[in-house]
C-alpha cells in the first residue's frame, strides 16, 4: 500500500479483504479462487452457504487444507497447495475444466489484480519487462466466468495508481471486472462507471478518489468496509 500515512493506517489487511469478498459471494455460487489473497477467501465462507469452490486444475468441491501428514499428492489446487474434498466433489481434466470455465458455468472468479481500468479491464498476468509472470488460467477465467471479483492494494508501494482510466500493463481481459476489492475500498463497475460502495473506516470518498484515476460514482456516503471484529 501507499506511503500516505492516513491511507496506510486505515487500510485493511489481506485477511480483512478476503473476509469482505467472502461476504459478497452469493450463497450457492460456484467460485474459482486465484493465487494470493483470493485463496484466503475460502477461510471465511461458512459451509452452510453452499458455495462450491472450483479449481481449474480439475476439481469442484475442494475442501479445507488437509491436516499435516494427511496430504494426498494427487489432490492439489491451482495454487499447488494440498486440498481435501467435500462430499459431492468431482474431478476432471484440464479440457473439461476449461470447458466449464469458458462455457460460463463458473459464477465468480476471484482474482488478484495488478491494474484495473475504469471500464473493468483487468491486467494481472505480467508487468512490462522480460521474464515475469505467466498467463496461466487467468485469461480464460477472466473471459469465461460470469463475474470477476478483483482484489488489489489500491495503490503501488511507491504511491503509483492501479485503478486507472486505461491499464498500462498487458491486459488479461477487457471489461470483465464487476467488483473490485482493495485495501481501502469496494467498488462496483456499473454501465455508468466505477461506483464506490464502501470505504475503509476512517477514510472519506475524497481520500479514495485522490488515489483513483477514474471519477468514482457515489450516491450519498458509502458504507464502511468490514474489518476483523477481533483484531
Amino acid at each position, binding site marked *: 500500500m501507499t506511503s500516505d500515512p492516513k491511507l496506510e493506517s486505515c487500510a485493511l489487511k489481506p485477511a480483512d479483504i478476503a473476509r469482505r469478498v467472502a461476504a459478497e459471494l452469493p450463497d450457492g455460487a460456484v467460485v474459482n479462487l486465484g493465487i494470493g489473497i483470493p485463496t484466503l477467501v475460502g477461510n471465511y465462507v461458512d459451509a452452510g452457504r453452499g458455495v462450491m469452490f472450483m479449481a481449474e486444475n*480439475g476439481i469442484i468441491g475442494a475442501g479445507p487444507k488437509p491436516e499435516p501428514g494427511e496430504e494426498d499428492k*494427487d489432490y492439489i489446487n491451482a495454487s499447488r497447495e494440498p486440498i481435501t474434498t467435500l462430499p459431492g466433489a468431482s474431478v476432471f481434466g484440464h479440457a473439461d475444466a476449461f470447458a466449464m470455465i469458458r462455457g460460463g458455468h463458473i459464477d465468480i472468479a476471484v482474482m488478484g489484480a495488478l491494474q484495473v481500468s475504469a471500464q473493468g479491464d483487468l491486467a494481472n498476468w505480467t508487468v512490462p519487462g522480460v521474464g515475469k509472470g505467466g498467463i496461466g*488460467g487467468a485469461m480464460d477465467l477472466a473471459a469465461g466466468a460470469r463475474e470477476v471479483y478483483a482484489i488489489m492494494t489500491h495503490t503501488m508501494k511507491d504511491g503509483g495508481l492501479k485503478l486507472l482510466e486505461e491499464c498500462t500493463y498487458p491486459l488479461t481481459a477487457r471489461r470483465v471486472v464487476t467488483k473490485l476489492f482493495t485495501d481501502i475500498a469496494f467498488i462496483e463497475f456499473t454501465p455508468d462507471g466505477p461506483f464506490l460502495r464502501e470505504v475503509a473506516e476512517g477514510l472519506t470518498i475524497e481520500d479514495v478518489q485522490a488515489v483513483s484515476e477514474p471519477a468514482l460514482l457515489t450516491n450519498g456516503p458509502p458504507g464502511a468496509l468490514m474489518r476483523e471484529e477481533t483484531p
Partner: protein
Amino acid sequence: MTSDKVYPSSRAAVADIPDGATILLGGFGGAGIPENLLVAMADHPARDLTVVTNHAGFGERGLAVLLRQGKVKKIICSYAFHRSAFVFRELYLEGKIELEQLPQGTMAERIRAAGAGISAFYTPTGVGTQAAEGKETRTINGRDVVLEHPLPGDVAVIKAHRADAMGNLTYRGTAANFNPVMATAAPLTIVEVEEIVAPGVIAPESVHTPSIYVQRVVRGEDLDLRSET
C-alpha cells in the same frame, strides 16, 4: 495381442523418441507428472525437442533435467516464470530457449482440437490481449473472438494412476490435469502408471482414457519420485 503395450522399463518406452519431436508433457504443479519417463528421457539422446506443458519446469526434477542438458529447443506453456521454474528462466534470459505462452484453457482446447479432428475454433479467451496478437479475430453473436488452431504432438508423455494391459487408463484426483487430453493428441502416447491390471478389472464406465489412445504403458520404477514444491 494388446499386452505388447506394456513396456518393461521407462527407458525402453522412450527409446525411440526422435530429435526435433514435439512432446506433449502432462502434469500440473506436482501432480500427474510422468517423472520416471522424464528421467529416462534425460538419459536419452533426443535433442531439439519442443515441449508443450503447463509450466516451464518445477524445481530441479522432471523437465528441469531435460532443460539442463540442453535438450529442449522450445517450451510452449501457459505459465513460464513461476519461481520454481528457475532452470528455465536462466536458459531463457540467456537466449538459449524459445518460449510461447498460451492461456491455459486455450492450450487445453487446442490440444483437444488436435485429438478431436476440429480444424480450428473461435474462443473469447485472450481477445484484446497479447495472446490474440497476429491471430484472426471476428465478432460472433456480438462477442469478439479469436481463431485458434490445433496443437498436436508427435509424442504424448503422460502419467495416469492405473492402466490395464490394453491401455485403458484411470486418473486420480487432480493428477488428471492435462494428461487425458494429451493422450488423444499424439500418434504415440507413452504412459507412466502406478499400477497395471488385467483387462476387465477397470469397468467400462470407469475408464477415463480409452485404450485406443494409448500405445505404451510402463509402471514407474520409482514411485516415490516427487518434485519439490
